[in-house]
């Protein structure tokens, strides 16, 4: 109660920091690595073509810059994948759904069932090979307020989707 001017004692409310979060499936790290590898190969091909065809790059030190920035981007990306993976976790509480992520900048995003408009399950080609899927929760929020939980087992994702749809089925007093 040190910061809010509310009659409800905030310390009695369910606290976001005490949520028991479940880590996403371990195979999801493999998915991320494979996706990283594919993108890296494509980028490497583009970089190679650039250096091969633009002769100006080879005569000056331009190729060092191109190659250097390629390596920098790719390695930083991998570092972020490896470092942030252990922190990725989700939770379904009584009245909301939460997802935690990040490494340098960590975030915990929580969305009440009350505000969820729709809910879907998506799986990319690599995810499907590992029988994984992402759960996407849509809200009416304007800029990127949707919640995406990746790295769930397909059955788990479907189950969660059913559960959340069941939770949101009753709009209280509006028809929309």
């Amino acid at each position, binding site marked *: 109660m*040190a*910061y*809010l*001017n*509310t*009659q*409800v004692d*905030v310390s009695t*409310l*369910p*606290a*976001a*920091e005490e949520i028991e979060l479940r880590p996403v499936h371990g195979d999801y790290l493999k998915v991320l690595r494979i996706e990283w590898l594919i993108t890296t190969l494509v980028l490497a091909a583009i970089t190679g073509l650039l250096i091969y065809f633009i002769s100006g790059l080879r005569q000056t030190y331009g190729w060092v810059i191109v190659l250097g920035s390629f390596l920098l981007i790719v390695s930083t990306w991998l570092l972020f994948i490896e470092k942030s993976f252990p922190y990725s976790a989700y939770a379904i509480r009584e*009245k*909301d759904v939460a997802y935690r992520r*990040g490494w*340098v*900048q*960590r*975030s*915990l*995003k*929580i*969305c*009440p*069932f*009350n*505000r969820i*408009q729709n809910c879907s399950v998506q799986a990319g080609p690599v995810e499907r090979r590992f029988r994984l899927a992402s759960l996407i929760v*849509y*809200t*009416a*929020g*304007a*800029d*990127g*307020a949707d*919640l995406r939980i990746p790295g769930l087992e397909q059955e788990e994702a479907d189950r969660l989707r059913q559960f959340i749809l069941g939770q949101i089925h009753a709009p*209280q*007093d*509006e*028809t*929309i």
Partner: protein
Amino acid sequence: MKPFDWSKPQKQPWAGLAVVFANTLWEAIKGLWVFILLILLKRKDESGPDWTQILAIIILFLTVVSALFRFLFFRFYIEEGKLVIKKGWLKKETKVIPLERIQTVHVEQGPLHQLLSIVKLSIDTAGTQKTEATIEALGKPMAEALREELLSVQGQENKEAVNNSIPGAPSITLTDRDLLKLSISANHLEAFFIVFSFMFGLYDRLRSIDDDLVSGVDNLFPDKAIYPVLFLIAAVLMVTLLVSTARVFLRFYNFAVFRVNNGFRIRGGLFNVKEKLIASRKVQYVSWRANWIRKLMRLWMLEYHVSGGYEIKSKQRVHLPITRPAYLPMLVADYYPIPATGGLLSIRVHPSFIGRRLLMFGVLPTLIILPLMWWAWGAYSLFFLLYTPVPGFAALLIQKKFRLWALDDVLLVKRGFFGETHILLQWQKIQAVSIRQSIYQRQKGLASVKLDTAAGSIYIPYINLKAARELTDYALYKASSRYASWL
């Protein structure tokens, strides 16, 4: 007013053809302007045919044909509680909008509409997808009747425009003096830089094309280096003032706010008269702001942040100039009365925010960019050092001014650097909450909070972690409450 039979396919009135033609022509010019410019600039070849005329005739002909098709194949009708709009000849397009999904119907009049005494109707729906529709031209009585019909399906409590056809005495209007005050206090700095860079670029280009043209200006001043610049600045100041005045008059001429059953009806504009309905329940949060001149003059610009993709595009945002202090609490109270904050606990931005901003947006970019600039421009690049402290200075002002009051039903934020912005948000309008921490914030026990609403997000930087957690918990508690509706 004779009753209309909406179940039969309706055409637009013939006067609408002019509007459709004008729109088509405008689109054609927008699409082909490079081509047109190229042809126009080409020196006339004595022997060959006059391409300018041929081109003009072709474009005009195609435009007339295309506009005619657009006009003739446009139909709309109401069928089984749905508005159906059909258009197109070769590529047919049908839009079906269930009436209960219609949120608001806006009426708009451009100069051509005014001349022909017709109106344009835009229909806004609650969907996240792009389901808006427009009817380019309608006679005034027909438009009123259609609006009535479109909104009549909704329940009495949802109906936004019950007494629409009888606008009462306007609640708020602007006098010419108010408009002048608004013009003088407009954000000149922004307009100034736009006009200045434009004119400077023009001056430079003219000089490179034709030295004689600008030598007139240059000869006015003996010292060539500095005086033309001063002259430019003076000229730009004049133009800026004129531009600001014109912008204010274009937007707010004949401005009036009427109270209707569940919201406001706002109209205004000089050539392009716009009329909008703001349903109170659709308002997600309210903000009012003033730059430092306006703060001194006690002028505020109030904004209702409304849900729906249509409104979020800045063109459609709803600004209400407040010229009398008494209007502000009155208009905000429609959303929620402005709470008194005296003696209440407030959440403030942590002072380390200043240093971090200086480091991340001032010092770091300087360390990266300065060596590169040095390599390219030598000692001139030291001018870049003037920029380095700016983010820190801005952060200092932001940190000093920021206040957040968390109350039972609402959240009030006061922030700004030269000016001041107030934001009033009801907890129940929140869609999602994020709590974020960088490495530095984790060490210092700080966090940032982002509150997402259907009309945009509110970002609260660098507050105490405990305060951030309390905000998050309380926001979720209020949003999850059974009776809390956001629409």
